[in-house]
């Protein structure tokens, strides 16, 4: 039986498959359907201090092998989350990664303080990459100084593992992973969605009320794999990879490219049982390849054969 556990900073996950933030509600929605304790972690929907209504519908539209969303971070706020959702997540023995989002640096710090005192939070994921809100968030994630500042400010006030979630909407994502590492992040997670849009040509209207939204799903996977590969080479801290994972092979690609763990987003909408299916698939792969620990797979991309082919041809 291969060892599926992975280490993310001080946090040991039972396995490398995490339900991605924004694609699994607060986790409790799935509590009756999925055994949450079997997942490596549950990254809950992004939280601000206050409640938010989010954008008006239409909030999603399907595109080739993907979807755009502009939910606008509708949410119940951190206090209601702690009171109404966290107890059930604890009861169901979920490893809870809380995704936090601020309009200002102070809001991230305040959220980190509040959640550090809450019982049952395993790690903080810093949402500095949501493309769908005007204020905060991605403003930090698109500036190296902003990324450094928010990560180091949160680092100072919490002992919880700090995982900035990076946006792919930058020229060189690896430099943002480096800035995160220098600021004291325990890991980075990537990628959030790609800023995109879709138009109804008959009405000439945007398909989303917010006009633009974030592209996710299998369509983005090859770009995400490349970005994880680049970040793995740039930093020593663990990389959590995501972007269009819908099968065991997809998850393995991320691990081999350099991810220590993966998050599964859009595929949960299609198949709420996908995370545990991927775990079975990963376990079978490890057995088939005689790999005793999943962590031994991370970053094992073999480029030598390809180089030889180039030389011989």
């Amino acid at each position, binding site marked *: 039986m291969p060892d599926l556990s992975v280490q993310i900073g001080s946090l040991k996950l039972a396995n490398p498959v995490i339900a991605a933030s924004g694609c699994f*509600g607060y986790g409790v929605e799935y509590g009756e359907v999925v055994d949450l304790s079997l997942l490596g972690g549950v990254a809950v929907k992004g939280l601000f201090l206050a409640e938010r209504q989010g954008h008006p519908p239409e*909030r999603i539209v*399907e595109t080739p092998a993907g979807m755009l969303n502009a939910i606008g971070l509708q949410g119940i706020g951190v206090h209601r989350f702690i009171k109404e959702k966290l107890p059930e997540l604890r009861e169901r023995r979920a490893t809870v990664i809380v995704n936090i989002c601020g309009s200002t640096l102070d809001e991230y710090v305040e959220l980190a303080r509040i959640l550090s005192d809450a019982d049952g939070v395993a790690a903080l994921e810093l949402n500095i990459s949501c493309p769908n809100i005007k204020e905060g968030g991605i403003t930090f994630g698109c500036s190296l100084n902003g990324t450094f500042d928010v990560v180091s400010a949160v680092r100072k006030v919490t002992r919880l593992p700090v995982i900035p979630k990076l946006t792919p909407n930058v020229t060189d994502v690896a430099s943002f992973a480096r800035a995160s590492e220098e600021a004291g992040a325990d890991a980075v997670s990537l990628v959030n969605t790609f800023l995109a849009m879709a138009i109804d040509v008959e009405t000439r209207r945007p398909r989303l009320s917010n006009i633009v939204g974030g592209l996710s799903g299998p369509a983005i996977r090859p770009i995400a794999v490349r970005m994880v590969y680049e970040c793995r080479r740039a930093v020593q801290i663990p990389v959590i990879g995501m972007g269009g994972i819908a099968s065991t092979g997809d998850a393995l690609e991320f691990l081999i490219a350099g991810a220590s763990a993966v998050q599964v987003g859009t595929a949960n909408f299609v198949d*709420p049982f996908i995370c545990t299916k991927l775990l079975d698939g990963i376990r079978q792969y490890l057995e088939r390849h005689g790999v005793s620990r999943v962590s031994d797979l991370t970053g094992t991309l073999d480029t030598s054969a390809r180089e030889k082919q180039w030389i011989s041809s």
Partner: protein
Amino acid sequence: MPVDVEARVIANTRLSPDYNVIALAAPDIAASTAPGQFVMVKLGRGFTPLLRRPFSVFEVLRTNGHVDGLTLLSKRVGVTTSMLFDAVEGDVVSCLGPLGRPFELLDPPAEAWMVAGGVGLAPFATLTEALRGRGTTVTLFYGARSGRELFYLDWFQARGVRMVLATEDGSVGDHGRVTVPLERALRVAGRPQKAAGDLPPSSEASAERRGDPPERIARPTLAGRGAQRPDLGGGGQPSGSSITIYACGPEPMLEAVAHLAARYGRPSQVSVERVMGCGLGGCYSCVIPVREGRDGWRYVRSCIGGPVFAGADIVWD
């Protein structure tokens, strides 16, 4: 608790060039479905379509009292509905359900008025069965573009449902939208002794703003369709105080029905259809604004907070 089933297609009946009824071998879902609940459906293994689509459960199929499947009523408008239209016996459809909040069967409503627009007929077969079991008198107000798109009339009549039909081309029943005969019936029934809640003062104005067709003089119902008009012409007894209105159809129709129900003091339950990503509350795409507190509102996920809402709870404007 919802289950995910790879359901075999038992039969696929094309009702028109656009509409079909597909029967699926999903007995576990069928047996636990309450009227108004839905399933999330996916065809094919690829990424087109990527996401599932929601469908109300239309019929629960039984053989000798044993539940062996369910049917979906579908209108061909997109990728999934085209695949459902073209599906053949033996194909496999991924079916997750039952999902959502069902209709509430008030105990006992003396009369249930079901209002269906087009493919919005879907939840009313199971609702009819449930209501009949409770001895409720059931009327179906059913509107479509033309008489060629009115389906299953015999099915409902065979179960003692009174039928009131309307078509936009006037080929069958009232000429116009289904709200035309509904409003006439509400007027005849009068207001109950005790009004059900406060009336929004702007309901009439809002219906006009939306451009509902003006009421026309009703044509006689086409006898050939076998539909009979209930006693709405003033000759019959006004209905008792407990009429509950159930509606499913395009959102402008639901809004009009909710306003009419409020104006005539009748409770309404409407089944909404919003663009839905997952059906389980994970994605927050299918939200609808619902009243909260005195003047407030909030977005509620129609997959888990609905799809059935009290018509008076929804902020329509």
